[in-house]
């Protein structure tokens, strides 16, 4: 890998994925679609981190550990986000007590 492919190519690939994700997050109307765009953005960052680690600091671990943290945080964020999607959907489906109160108040 090192010596064959210049680091700039890998970073350009990551930048491309980031901007594709950015486009998705900004242009989708659907909440799940926006979340998918954000996942692409976070993935591209991980490519960056791994590339920096492999090219510049192959014996260090800063890039690797940061990637692990990013993956964990992204997974947590997506879990909470999808829980909210489901909850909002359910709230829209059912007419519950609170909405009735809202009409009164």
């Amino acid at each position, binding site marked *: 890998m090192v010596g064959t492919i210049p680091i700039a190519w890998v970073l350009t690939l990551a930048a491309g994925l980031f901007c594709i994700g950015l486009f*998705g997050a900004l*242009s989708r109307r659907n909440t799940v679609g926006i979340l998918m765009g954000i996942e692409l953005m976070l993935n591209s960052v991980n490519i960056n981190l791994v590339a920096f680690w492999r090219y510049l600091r192959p014996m260090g*671990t800063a890039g690797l550990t940061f990637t692990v943290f990013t993956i964990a945080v992204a997974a947590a964020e997506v879990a909470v986000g999808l829980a909210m999607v489901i909850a909002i959907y359910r709230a829209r489906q059912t007419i519950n007590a609170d909405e009735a109160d809202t009409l009164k108040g």
Partner: protein
Amino acid sequence: MNYVVLTIFFLLSALTLGSGIMVVTVKNIIHAALWLISTFVGVAALYMLMEAEFLAIVQVLVYAGAVSILVLFAIMLTRQITGTGTRQLHSRWWVAMLTAAALFGGVIVPTVWQQGSSWDKTASDAQAILVQQATEANGGTRPEIIPVAGTEELGAALMGEYLLPFEVVSLLLTAALIGAILIAFEERTRRRRVLTLAEELALRKRGIVEPHDEEGAVVPVDAEQAV
């Protein structure tokens, strides 16, 4: 030049970017989620190419395995609002397109290319040191595989230098877990439950509900109402 690596890299780039574009553009949101899996696998293969095997496996397990399945579940549970017929993009999607293109072509790519050659020099120096160390450890001959920091070093770092963020991330996952359950579960107080005899009697006295229907089954009453 190692043409095998080069070919693999271009194929993987095409796979990753191509499926990425499909994720953000296809009409059917389920197809988008499936393309997302393909992107994740492409990224995992890139990690493999960059000799980060552990991360490649984590990527497949967490992203391609867990996250994408979660996304598919969410789509299926809310399918009326995520139908294929509705428009999926904003009417002003071209603004987003311009923003993303400007960020790509105007900011990130020039920045990265301008720094690229000096980084490549650092990289070849670092690689040379690695090769030299590996050769010495191997008794003078250059080994097939040049070792880089792997799972062992990563584990040691997570328990050593990065102990604090590691522990805090575990707290963060706990908070996310509690939060997801809290939000997605039906509210406890709102759950319909069968009344106890005493409550039923009290309600009948106040004449609020007729507790039995024709078949004699207990009619569930909102717990809230009973109070």
